[in-house]
């Protein structure tokens, strides 16, 4: 029932990484990356038709959905990277060697992320995420500036500890499943665990949950474990920020969601919802208030990612119908945030700085870029016709029906965060541009096309989601429970 396709999804980028290690020509390297991610994405499109679970590979609606999303963002980011890296080389920000390093690390990162998603084994998931983390750390440190290196070190140490905790949680989870499943691979497989959850040992599940939540929560950027995120996003190469915001968070959230499902089915275990909701809500509030003081655009949007990740986590913690909304939120946020980061990257290249003070007045200087960016920011702020409006409305509605007081806190976070986004939208896009002339050629449509594709998808998801997509997402939400 499981064909070769699921393997192909992570293997395509990983193989490309090996190949890219041998290719020194930057342009060719970029095309190889595009081809590999394209192949991976194409293979991921076949996932829905090969649903099933093997020893190592699990293709259910949830993993297939997030894998398609990740592969897609990887593909568009590779498309975007081609010109971005070429311009970076042209402007002297990167040399050819580092460009090669970048492609290799990016492909490794992407491949392991996809592997982590599609694996049916907690151990494999963990190893893949660890490998992805290491490659992400290296790629964040790639610009070799002092700030970048320090950011990557911080990222590494915090996520290293987080990942350590996650491993401990994995061991305890295995221990909890032993009486139900006996020793062997089964006790580490998501599918078996989901089936045997009622027979697992509740107290151990609790312990495992604490470690898994904190471990993967660190990767998901949930407060108060989010310390690494702003720096890593701000200092790394922009295409990576796009993927970091988009997919690392998702993979971690998916793991948390699956663990939640296991906890839910066990009568002895404590309710997993409240701690997830608490961390989600704390992230929303903390990030919303932190947005106000930011002067660096990428750091700003990193905080916005923390906020949105918090919203999704909150929805997952809430459970029930909110899981669907959370998944939708995650999906749409991934698309929107990577579009925004792509635009910010282009703007930063044009102005030679990523500080808001130097980025103002884009509408006058680069109109298409500014409009795309504005649409992206409005999407993140949760305005229609973009999809985050739909997901936030569903989450808000579900919350206020079930726990009205929390809805007040969530609403506060959304308002404060939305206001900050509005303020920065106005700084970035409106007004007169700074007097210094922009660097290089104006942005052309090829650079913006990936963002446009993302935005078009978001509009589709927000305004008139096809029945099939809705059913698909509902299945994915069901798969986690």
């Amino acid at each position, binding site marked *: 029932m499981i064909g070769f396709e699921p393997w192909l999804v992570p293997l395509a980028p990983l193989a490309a990484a090996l190949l890219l290690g041998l290719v020194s020509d930057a342009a060719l390297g970029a095309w190889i990356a595009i081809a590999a991610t394209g192949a991976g994405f194409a293979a991921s499109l076949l996932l829905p038709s090969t649903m099933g679970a093997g020893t190592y590979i699990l293709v259910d609606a949830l993993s297939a959905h997030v894998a398609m999303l990740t592969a897609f963002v990887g593909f568009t980011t590779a498309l975007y990277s081609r010109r971005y890296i070429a311009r970076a080389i042209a402007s002297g920000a990167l040399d050819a060697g580092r460009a090669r390093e970048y492609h290799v690390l990016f492909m490794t990162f992407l491949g392991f992320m996809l592997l982590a998603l599609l694996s049916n084994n907690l151990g494999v998931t963990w190893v893949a995420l660890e490998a992805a983390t290491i490659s992400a750390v290296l790629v964040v440190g790639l610009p070799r500036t002092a700030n970048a290196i320090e950011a990557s070190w*911080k990222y590494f*140490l*915090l996520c290293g*500890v987080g990942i350590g905790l996650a491993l401990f949680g994995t061991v305890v989870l295995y221990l909890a499943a032993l009486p139900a499943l006996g020793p062997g691979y089964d006790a580490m497989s998501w599918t078996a665990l989901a089936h045997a959850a009622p027979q697992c040992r509740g107290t151990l599940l*609790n312990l495992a949950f*604490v*470690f898994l939540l*904190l471990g993967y929560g*660190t990767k998901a950027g949930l*407060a*108060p*474990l989010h*310390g690494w995120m*702003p720096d890593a996003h701000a200092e790394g190469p922009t295409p990576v920020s796009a993927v970091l915001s988009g997919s690392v968070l998702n993979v971690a959230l998916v793991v948390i969601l699956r663990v939640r499902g296991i906890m839910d089915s066990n009568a002895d275990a*404590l309710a997993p919802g409240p701690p997830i909701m608490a961390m989600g809500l704390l992230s929303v*509030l*903390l990030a919303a*208030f*932190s947005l*106000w*003081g930011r002067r660096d655009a990428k750091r700003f949007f990193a905080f916005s990612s923390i906020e949105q990740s918090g919203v999704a986590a909150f929805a997952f913690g809430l459970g029930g119908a909110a899981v*669907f909304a959370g998944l*939708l939120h995650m999906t749409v946020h991934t698309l929107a945030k990577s579009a925004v980061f792509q635009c910010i990257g282009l703007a930063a290249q044009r102005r030679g700085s990523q500080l808001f003070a130097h980025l103002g007045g884009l*509408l006058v200087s680069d109109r298409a870029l500014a409009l795309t960016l504005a649409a992206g920011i*409005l999407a993140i*702020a*949760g*305005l*229609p*016709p973009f999809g985050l*409006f*739909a997901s*936030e*409305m*569903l989450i808000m*509605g*579900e919350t*206020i*029906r079930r726990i*009205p007081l929390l*809805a007040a806190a969530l*609403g506060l976070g*959304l*308002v*404060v965060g*939305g206001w900050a986004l*509005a*303020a920065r*939208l*106005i700084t970035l896009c*409106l*007004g007169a541009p700074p007097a210094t002339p922009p660097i290089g050629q104006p942005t052309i449509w090829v650079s913006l096309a990936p963002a446009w594709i993302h935005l078009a998808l978001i509009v589709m998801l927000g*305004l*008139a*989601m096809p*029945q099939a*997509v*809705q*059913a698909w*997402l509902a299945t994915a939400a069901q798969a986690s429970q």
Partner: protein
Amino acid sequence: MTDLVLPWLGLVMLGLCGTAAMAAVSGDRAAGLGSLVACGAGALAALLHLLAGAPEARLAVPLGLAGRSGLLAIDGVSSLFLLLVMTIGVAASAASLDRHGPPSATAPAFPVFLAGMALTLLAGDGVTLVLGFEAMSLASFILVATDHREETVRKAALLYLGIAGLGAVCLVAALGLMGETGVGFDAIRAHPPRGVRAVAVLVLVLIGAGSKAGLAPLHVWLPPAHAAAPGHVSALMSGAMTKVALYVIVRVLFDLAGAGQPGWFGVPLIAMGLAGAVIGALRANMETDIKAVLACSTVENVGLIAIGLGLAFAARAADLPSLAGLALGAALLHAMGHGVFKGMLFLGAGSILHGAGSRLMERLGGLIRPMPYTACAMLLGAACLAGLPPSAGFAGEWLLFQSVLSGIRLGGLGVQIAICVLAGGMALATALAASAAVRLVGVALLGRPRTPRAAAATESGPPLRWAVILLGLLSLGMGLVPSLVLGLAEPALQHLSQGGMAQRAGLLTLSPHLDGPGYLPLGVALLLGFGVAVIAAVLRARAVAGHRTGPAWDCGFGAPPPWLPNGDPATQYAGGSFAQPLRRALGVALLDADETVVMPPPDDVAPARFAEHSVDPADRLLFAPAGRLRAVISGLADRMTFLTVRQSLAVLFAALVLFLVVVAVLEQA
């Protein structure tokens, strides 16, 4: 035919969206023309629907959240408001054809704005309503930001968007409280919220829609945003959008929340309305930007309408259907009237901005000569603003006062005394509005031009003139025969309050009670006309004809120097000086106003300086403290985020220990 209304209106909205797409390609003119046609079609449909007795209809559309289809629905209430929106839409679109200067990049947002309003009014379920409402917010934000190179415009746009976000979250929450997301209005009506939940709905709707309507204390965005937007846009925002927000309040509180809610739900509406009426009217006397003056007066009028709505709600709960019908009829009549005349005033203000190059009173003056059409429109509008008979403004306010006076039956002594205060407050607000209207017209249009630019002002082109004439005629008609409007509103009144105005409004008269005496606007107009005719006849017969012109006497003020052939225009009263008596009498108490006069010593030739300053109490008491609180929390949040590695690890460690302790405690228990 009634089956066709919704598809027809759906087509209108589609057409508006198509217009937006066309405008994105080919510029403003397409936006204006397309919107004009679509709005005309929409207004026609709404009118026919109302004339046919407003039968209810529903239509599912493939538009909505997460695979669900949205629902369009129409009844008397939506149809009435739709008629207003589309009518102002016609005028505003026509006016937009008269744009001066370079084409604006934001033109495509204009039809979207209209479509968003229409969608809000036609929504048959919560999601569609919010979708329309947000489309309206977003499009109007874009339109407000049209002249984004100006700092003040950007500030206004930010304030607007921020408060719109607050409103959106509250509105979503309110609709969420009333039923499963995306469920149709019928299902909500079947199970209206009760108890605390209903109170929460009330609060959330008042914030959510009230902020858009400009109910105090969430009105602070109106003056800057209306001032920043182009004229035809502010006409729509003030004339139509605030009414759409009021429609949402009416829809949720009167219709969806059911008739079983307690009467005190009307109290916050009344209190916010009164506060807005007084503060808005007073601020209208202080602002120096003519569009800000008009926006403040919108705050005042929305406040008056809200008072009517609150009274109607209380009366309905107290089982006084005739009073409920009276108050609601008054509110609706005033809403319609205000929509039309405020639209006209804003179009006039836009025309002044283009013709005379400024919105600031201190830079205008004497425009009645170069801009006769605009001046006539502003005069007519100002009469409505001031609530002078027989204008449309007076009809609405008269009926509102009548409902307040009848409201004495609502409760015991406490309520009655409150009603007395309310009546006094409303009278204060209307008198303040009259003062503001005189100030606006007197300073901006009359007297001598204060700048060379104002002296060289030119009248707007024919499209704007026709738009203004259309609204002017409508406003005249509504003033003289207000029963026509009430007739159109009758289905809405029946739907919302079980007691209509049909018995009480004859073809020509309005009366608060069944077969009691009332107000006959046409009679008053005839008497006035008769009086003027008699005077003219007598003067013709008995007085010397013609007149001579000469320099103004001005108590023998010195002759003007040769380079100022019209005298020194700076000696005229301007906005600030006209406001001085009120600033001293009321502004100090309510707006924290202060004046600074710097007078040089006797030998010094330096000019004397005068500065005045006032703050909206909502700013002072609500927004400024909230902003400071936000800054403090932001600082704390930053300190929680920008930690050293060791501190971050310590936080992680603390979280881990905390969770373990919680688990241990829970497991022991």
